[in-house]
């Protein structure tokens, strides 16, 4: 006599998953050491909720200024086709002390020599290049010196091709 087979499986398996997963319900979270991924976002190394800044290029260099030139410009090509986020830091010249200060600061600064005459250190970018510029006051223009600088260029999150 043949044994009968039961067509049912108990407990039954439901084909549905409840609650359903929506795109907002998942992501990647990496916690800092000694923290849990359920902690606040400031305790995360990374969360896929937000994009990170992505580096296009960075480097160091030396800007050589020659007495009497009035200023100097370093041009760094990025060719992104849009104006990117940039950071530039560099040394500066202490005119009264007649010496380059071997510390870095954000390049957007000006140093007064008296009330109105100033040395300008600044940078800006267009859709093709990053420009790092130094403009000397007539007092500083009497000296020749080298300034170390460093820069970072980041992709614009809206514009990466």
């Amino acid at each position, binding site marked *: 006599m043949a044994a009968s087979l039961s067509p049912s499986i108990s407990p039954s398996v439901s084909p549905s998953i409840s609650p359903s997963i929506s795109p907002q319900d998942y992501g*990647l979270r990496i916690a800092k050491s000694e923290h849990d991924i359920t902690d606040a976002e400031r305790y995360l190394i990374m969360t*896929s909720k*937000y994009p*990170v*800044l*992505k580096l296009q290029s960075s480097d160091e260099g030396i800007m050589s200024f020659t007495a009497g030139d009035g200023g100097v410009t370093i041009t760094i090509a990025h060719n992104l086709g849009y104006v990117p986020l940039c950071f530039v830091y560099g040394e500066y010249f202490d005119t009264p002390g007649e010496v380059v*200060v071997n*510390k870095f600061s954000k390049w957007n600064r000006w140093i007064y020599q008296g009330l109105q005459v100033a040395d300008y250190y600044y940078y800006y970018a267009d859709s093709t290049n990053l420009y790092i510029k130094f403009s000397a006051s007539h007092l500083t223009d009497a000296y020749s010196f080298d300034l170390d600088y460093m820069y970072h260029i980041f*992709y614009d999150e809206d514009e990466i091709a």
Partner: protein
Amino acid sequence: MPIEHALVIAKQGETDDVENLTPKQRAFDSRFPCLKILEADSVDAVNASEITFSAVVSFPLVVLVFLYVNSTGEYQPVGVTFDSTKLYLAGGGASGDTYHYFICYA
């Protein structure tokens, strides 16, 4: 070949395959280095401070410093100087003012 693979993480909420996502829809893409915080902390802004980097630092860096002005509750970007070993903060703030600094690699 190495150029043919990379780690791409879709931004949360994106439903398409990562290969179809635009860079803005990607939270991370190993084709590009990202900004990494080496140190982040805050110190009193009343007195001058020299912050010694806790790790060996190589250039180039990104250094961001903000001054919290207690009387207004505002954060102001401030110019500071640094070298390969220290961050130099000028001080001179009022009582309750605080420097918040971020030292980053990219």
